[in-house]
């Protein structure tokens, strides 16, 4: 496995450059796209459809949005990755996990770059400098494992059943609106009268605890509660376990189906 480390590096570099090779701004597009998205959502949910009074709303929104973008882009690009790289799959025997793994890693690089831009901004505006910041890399690592596990699953499933991407696309839109990205589930008016909905919003959706934990550190300036950290560990471990198990089970005929 370790002798394929260089292959993984190659795949990541290739993936980084593949899409934007030949375009003037090149790899910068990886950063520009999410930034444009951030601007648009800030305008819409911060000013036009403002239904919750949250101070420093753009910062609040951005934290949720970078996590969501990482999650969504990783799943969508990983799902197609094995088919896109069919020529490699048909060519040689190598650990096929490397292909969806590389696409998720490319998204992780974008995510980290955005987070690095966001971090000083947040700390300066919200005054959240403190030891809790040390937990950020831990959360990023857990999120990466969680996303990787999900990505392995959708990638191998989509290679066999081409309905997976349309289903995923359809699923991701309502999922986005149910994720606490542009609202705070605790202070939402509707949730005040229906506390069960609030619990569901915070705990059923596996992406929510990650966002809220990151937000506790960056936005509120304190360490996330234990519940969310434990949840993060469990989600990451479970996703990786499930993802690798399904992938191993199904990877056999990949060269035939892609």
């Amino acid at each position, binding site marked *: 496995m370790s002798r394929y480390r260089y292959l993984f590096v190659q795949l990541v570099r290739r993936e980084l450059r593949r899409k934007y090779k030949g375009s003037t701004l090149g790899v910068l597009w990886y950063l520009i796209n999410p930034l444009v998205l951030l601007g648009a959502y800030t305008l819409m949910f911060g000013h036009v459809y403002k239904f919750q009074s949250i101070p420093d709303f753009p910062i609040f929104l951005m934290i949720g949005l970078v996590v969501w973008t990482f999650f969504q882009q990783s799943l969508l690009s990983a799902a197609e990755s094995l088919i896109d790289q069919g*020529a490699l799959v*048909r*060519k040689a*025997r190598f650990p096929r996990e490397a292909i969806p793994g590389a696409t998720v890693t490319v998204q992780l690089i974008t995510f980290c770059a955005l987070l690095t831009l966001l971090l000083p901004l947040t700390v300066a505006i919200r005054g959240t400098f403190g030891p809790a910041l040390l937990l950020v890399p831990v959360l990023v690592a857990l999120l990466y494992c969680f996303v990787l596990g999900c990505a392995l699953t959708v990638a191998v499933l989509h290679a066999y059943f081409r*309905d997976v991407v349309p289903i995923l696309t359809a699923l991701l839109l309502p999922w986005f609106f149910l994720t606490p990205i542009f609202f705070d589930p605790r202070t939402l008016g509707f949730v005040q009268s229906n506390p069960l909905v609030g619990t569901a919003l915070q705990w059923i959706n596996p992406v929510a605890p990650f966002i809220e934990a990151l937000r506790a550190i960056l936005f509120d300036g304190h360490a996330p509660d234990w519940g969310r950290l434990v949840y993060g560990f469990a989600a990451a471990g479970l996703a990786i376990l499930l993802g690798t198990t399904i992938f191993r089970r199904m990877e056999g*005929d990949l060269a035939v189906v892609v």
Partner: protein
Amino acid sequence: MNLRPGEIVLRDATRSFSVRADQARTLKGLFLGRRAHGPAPVPALRGVTLHIEPGETVGMVGRNGAGKTSTLRVLAGIVPLQSGEARCGGRIVSLLELGAGFSRDFSGRENILLQGALYGLNRVQIEERLDRIIAFSELGGFIEVPVKTYSSGMFVRLGFSIAAHLDADVLLIDEVLAVGDEAFQRKCLRRISEQIAAGTTVVFVSHDAGAIERVCERVVVLDGGRIVFDGPAAEGLLHYHQSMGTEHGGGQSLRPERDRSGPGRENSVAVTELELRDALGRSTSVFHSGMPMQLYAAVRAPEAVQQGWLTLELLDRSGSSVFRTRTAFEAGTDGIARLVLDIPDLALLGGDYDLALAASAVDEATPTDRTIRFTVAGRPGAEGIVDLRGSWRSLAPVTGPHADGLR
């Protein structure tokens, strides 16, 4: 049990492929059980058992769909078996599809790095080989250009150069080499020979009997997903040609035959029978170099014409004339002339040949009446068409004070 590097074991290897117009299955199909309908899966391998020792060179021949490429893909570990066992020892490098695994937007050099990585080499290992690969590929400045601008010949050159320099224990080569020009093909065969000398196991699929004969000592003939022959190269190729011959009625000649069914033709001079026989007088279409061959022909002559001319022409696989001869004949009272051409030892080398016969009443060129195709199994150490059968001997080496001046 661990295999030695270069050892190959296939035991009862079985694999079939489903043939659906839309390859990709859908969840709907899964839930509705639609996979049960449609054409039955096509068996590609049906219990193939094969043991190849390290350093052996095996040619694999068979008709299209016989399972050759499937076998290679199974050996390369790309496609799993449904039952049985397939194992290869050491590093397996395959050259199966033309340009497979190349990213079109990347330069030849970048693709070399990726291909090397695909086989588990690290950066240092690949960079050690980089110069040799580039030199072998003869791509020159094109190595820095995205491969999407390459011609198919350039793809093959790069693909082969990479595969041939990764220090494989097992090298699997499919038909792809056929795309390169002749000079490069020769260079590839030479490189393969070098690898063989260095102890690499080579499995080679080709329809080019000549190339197989040059490179391989052992031939496996596949038919319908089964091994029908496994043994020495010359015999294997013979077996292959024989099975091809019976299947296609001797094969189609390149030379068109004269239409003998037209009105008035029944009274003209024509070759009516043509047969090739071996030393024992049995009809056959397969011969060995140096073996006796007997050609039997019957020519129909209308009563008015008692004599005529018979022309025989020997053609090689590309349709070029190798040999031509003519003879006068005289028909018997039954209006038929029977002729035999005795060839004491066939001075031809391995390959397929056509014999074309034409008969006419007058001494002039006439269209071919009848052709027959036959196969010659060559002899080791000689290539080409004609067997001149020379033998080498060494002269005493020049020694002494003037030796330098004589060079």
